[in-house]
């Protein structure tokens, strides 16, 4: 038996009005309280049209304040409302489980404490990227990393697949700032140059938050990245620069299996 009070984290999608699922909308309209982390001030207002009791989580960010503290506060206020017996919705832009720390943490704690807690998916920035850039991850394969993690650790790269790097606009940020600068971006170029030529064409992508905007798709060379302006929502898409290499050993074994099992 669950305790009174519940938490549902929903994704509102990226483009206002275009991506919200009927299920998520119902949860928002029926909630006792909605905590919002939207990608624009318009998004915040939009939620207040659906529910009059919207609490903006954006207020907990401060320049110089570690984001980890901000996220802890976000989790704390959502859980306090659940413990008070409310039907709580956390409305996060995009997908609430992709590049979103507080929803995962809050749901895990709420469940541990015996409350009903769930996550509903939303259309994420990578969904928009795949659609707008015409990429099918099934064709060549696709790896995806958070850019800061990518440069801080040794990550094997398969340059015959697509590579997507998130949050390239806050490279080097240790949780206190919300931007980056040329020397930090040059570090990423240095790491990528181990697997890609400097003249390789990459794409900087930003999904539209409003239907009056168009997607920003900026093709540049890898060498140009450090000097190219980026924002908090810029994503880097790196197309393959080599062909996939056949695994001759496995292909021979597959052929052998086919001969045994497909002719029975």
């Amino acid at each position, binding site marked *: 038996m669950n305790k009174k009070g519940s938490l549902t984290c929903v994704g509102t999608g990226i483009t206002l009005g275009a991506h919200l699922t009927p299920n998520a909308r119902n949860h928002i309209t029926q909630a006792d309280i909605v905590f919002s982390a939207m990608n624009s*001030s318009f998004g915040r207002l939009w939620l207040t049209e659906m529910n009059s009791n919207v609490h903006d989580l954006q207020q907990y*960010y401060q320049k110089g304040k570690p984001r980890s503290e901000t996220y802890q506060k976000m989790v704390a206020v959502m859980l306090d409302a659940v413990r008070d017996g409310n039907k709580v919705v956390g409305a996060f832009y995009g997908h609430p489980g992709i590049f979103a720390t*507080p929803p995962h943490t809050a749901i895990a704690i709420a469940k541990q404490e015996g409350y009903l807690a769930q996550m509903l998916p939303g259309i994420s920035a990578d969904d928009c990227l795949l659609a707008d850039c015409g990429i099918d991850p099934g064709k060549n394969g696709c790896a995806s990393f*958070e850019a800061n993690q990518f440069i801080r650790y040794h990550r094997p790269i398969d340059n015959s697949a697509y590579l997507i790097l998130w949050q390239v606009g806050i490279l080097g940020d240790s949780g206190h700032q919300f931007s980056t600068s040329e020397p930090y971006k040059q570090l990423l170029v240095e790491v990528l140059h181990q697997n890609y030529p400097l003249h390789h064409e990459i794409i900087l992508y930003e999904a539209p938050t409003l239907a*009056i905007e168009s997607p920003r798709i900026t093709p540049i060379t890898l060498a140009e990245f450090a000097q190219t302006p980026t924002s908090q929502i810029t994503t880097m898409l790196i197309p393959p620069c080599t062909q996939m290499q056949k695994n001759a050993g496995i292909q021979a074994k597959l052929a052998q299996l086919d001969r045994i099992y497909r002719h029975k």
Partner: protein
Amino acid sequence: MSNVIQLLERLGEEANLSEHTLENLQKQMANLELSELTQEAILQGDPQALESLLGLSPNLCNIVHQDDDEESDDNEEDTSDNNEQASSQQAIAM
């Protein structure tokens, strides 16, 4: 302000902004009695201008993710800094 949000929502719901004729969009905006500047910002696809006209505060941060390791690495750095500090203090004391 509510009119603008409703218009933005409707534009999002509709199939594709490119399917809107300029005339249709202008008509919708005129019906909502939006100011000329607001209409111009919408036609130009300029959210910053629209935000400013409506007196809205832009988001300080659009990031809601932090790599756990990032934080623990910082802690490790802090710890090693402290250790270094302790060692140098010890060295001075000696």
